[in-house]
């Protein structure tokens, strides 16, 4: 596999540039726009002198460029700032929360990618069947679902009413978290050989993952269907059929690889939606990930935390899209040459 070094370098350079601008943008958002961050930090009942003291303590009375310099220097040291509310550094809070969110997001992403592609493929292969009409109708409905509302419905029906799944959280009250290795409770439990903990973690994952998948799945399967349908009209498909190829081999070996590029592009963009959607779902299921952190910060006007979550989520999004860019030439050799 000969990668064009130029291609990789160009994408990496672009990603770094975007990250720099994103960091600056996030900084400006939380330092330039809020009416008075010191007021928020000091609390509602603080007097003018107290507000001034807090502003001085947090460095908010210094010129903007000066604050920016400090902010960038801190970031380079992996320092995300200090929460206005708890007055402690943000990193420990975030690093404890990130694995929880990642576990939720990664499983949703995988479920959606695998099943979305398979359903899209089936729709393209057997077009105009009753079932595909049903799927299309369901996909419009799925796209129209407000994710937080759907999460509440699932919670009410399958957890509160039927009792099949736990209502909130990542583990039951009497289950101890497995020893920390990856932060994914499912994987850590398996590594420690704790089967009941694993089962408990999986049961807790089902409803949040379902809530997140419902919306994404509709779009994924539709894009996949379109992509497969277009590929199926190409001459190489007819050639392959004329050669007497089995349909399974045709779909998985020939068509899938060609149809994959637009699907991967869309999945990369979907990841951005997932990062927003997870906040809403985490609030409903009291998940304790960065969405929950963000929600608490929003209630308290804790700007540094909001800023940190924005930054971390955006970096994740940029990195995922960089990966997508780097995946193109692996999937499609034609891109390697350009």
């Amino acid at each position, binding site marked *: 596999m000969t990668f064009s070094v130029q291609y990789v370098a160009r994408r990496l350079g672009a990603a770094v540039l*975007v990250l720099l*601008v*994103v960091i600056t*943008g996030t900084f400006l*958002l*939380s330092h330039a*726009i*809020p*009416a008075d961050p010191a007021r928020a930090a000091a609390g509602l009942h603080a007097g003018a002198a107290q507000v001034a003291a807090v502003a001085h303590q947090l460095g908010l009375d210094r010129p903007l460029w000066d604050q920016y310099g400090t902010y960038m220097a801190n970031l380079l040291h992996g320092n995300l700032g200090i929460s206005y509310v708890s007055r402690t550094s943000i990193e420990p809070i975030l690093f404890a929360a990130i694995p929880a969110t990642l576990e939720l997001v990664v499983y949703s992403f995988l479920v959606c990618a695998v099943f979305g592609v398979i359903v899209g493929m089936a729709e*393209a*292969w*057997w*077009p105009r069947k009753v079932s595909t009409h049903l799927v299309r109708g369901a996909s*419009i*409905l799925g*796209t*129209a*679902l*407000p*994710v*937080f*509302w*759907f999460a*509440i*419905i699932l*919670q*009410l029906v399958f957890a*509160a009413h039927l009792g099949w799944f736990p209502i909130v959280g990542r583990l039951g009250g009497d289950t101890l978290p497995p020893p920390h290795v990856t932060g994914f409770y499912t994987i850590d439990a398996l590594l420690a050989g704790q089967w009941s903990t694993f089962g408990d973690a999986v049961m807790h994952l089902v409803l949040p993952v379902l809530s997140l998948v419902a919306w994404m799945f509709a779009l994924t399967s539709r894009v996949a269907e*379109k992509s497969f*349908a277009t590929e*199926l*009209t190409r001459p190489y*498909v*007819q050639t392959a*059929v004329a050669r007497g190829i089995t349909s399974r081999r045709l779909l998985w070996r020939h068509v899938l690889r060609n149809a994959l590029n637009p699907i991967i592009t869309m999945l990369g963009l979907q*990841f*951005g*939606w997932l*990062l*927003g*959607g997870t*906040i*809403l779902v985490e*609030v*409903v299921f009291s998940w304790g990930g960065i969405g929950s952190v*963000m*929600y608490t*910060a*929003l*209630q308290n*006007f804790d*700007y540094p935390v*909001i*800023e940190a*979550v*924005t930054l971390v*989520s*955006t970096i994740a*999004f*940029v990195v995922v899209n960089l990966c997508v860019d780097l995946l193109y030439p692996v999937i499609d050799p034609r891109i390697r040459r350009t």
Partner: protein
Amino acid sequence: MTATLAQPVSPEVAVPVRRGRVAAVSRWWPAALVVIWVILIVFPQVLARQNPYTIHPAQALLPPSAAHWFGTDEAGRDVFARCVYGIRYSVGISVAVVFIAAAIGSVLGGLAGLGNKLADNLVMRTTDVFLAFPYMILAIAIAAAEGPGLTTVLIALTAVWWPSYARLVRGQILALRELPFVEGARAVNTPLRQIFVRHMLPHLAPQLYARIAIDIGYAILALTGLSFLGLGAQPPTPELGAIIADARNYTLQAWWYATLPGLFILAAVVSAIVIGNRLERAAGGTPA
């Protein structure tokens, strides 16, 4: 299975040709949908008989009944009335968001497509920055910085939404630029602004309308989401996302309170998507 392959699937969706009364109905129902929503936004009292703000502490958290179709909330207010009045905020503001974003995006996209290289680079790099953020996260960050409220949500969502329109319009303009009628207009020294408004916009409009309709649906989802997080409408304003947020403390005692208002969101978004798909088909594309 091989039969499918012998006659490859055509990418267009076959629209059955209908004649007579059925055709009239199928042609007009999207317009009828729009009319229904507009009536609900302008005259909510048509559907909601009760006042959405009146508090009846004695009637708190009553289940759905003939008097209260969606039951009552913790202050004894009629949830159905609150939902119907809430459409005004949830749908009304989303419509405003998308139209403002489309206007800003069209002007900037037009500048990028027709102007010089500098303008093009400036606009496109700006959209790059906006699109680098996950859009919900960016909207939350902007809304949080400005402080909660409906105006805030309007500004935050518009800021997040315009870049995609700028890109759409610019792309279309670059394609249209090469066509003979534009070349002709340029040859006789028509001002760029006039070329854009008179010669290009009519070609852009059908696609733009379809996109706007579908985006209104997505904007409703984003807006109710922001309100659910407490960034949008503040109490006692009845906004659909905010109603569901208020209901979260009572989901287990009063199932109707959190669940039924969502049906209005669902209905509004489905309407927007269906109308958008119809417009897209009319514009000659395949529904997304």
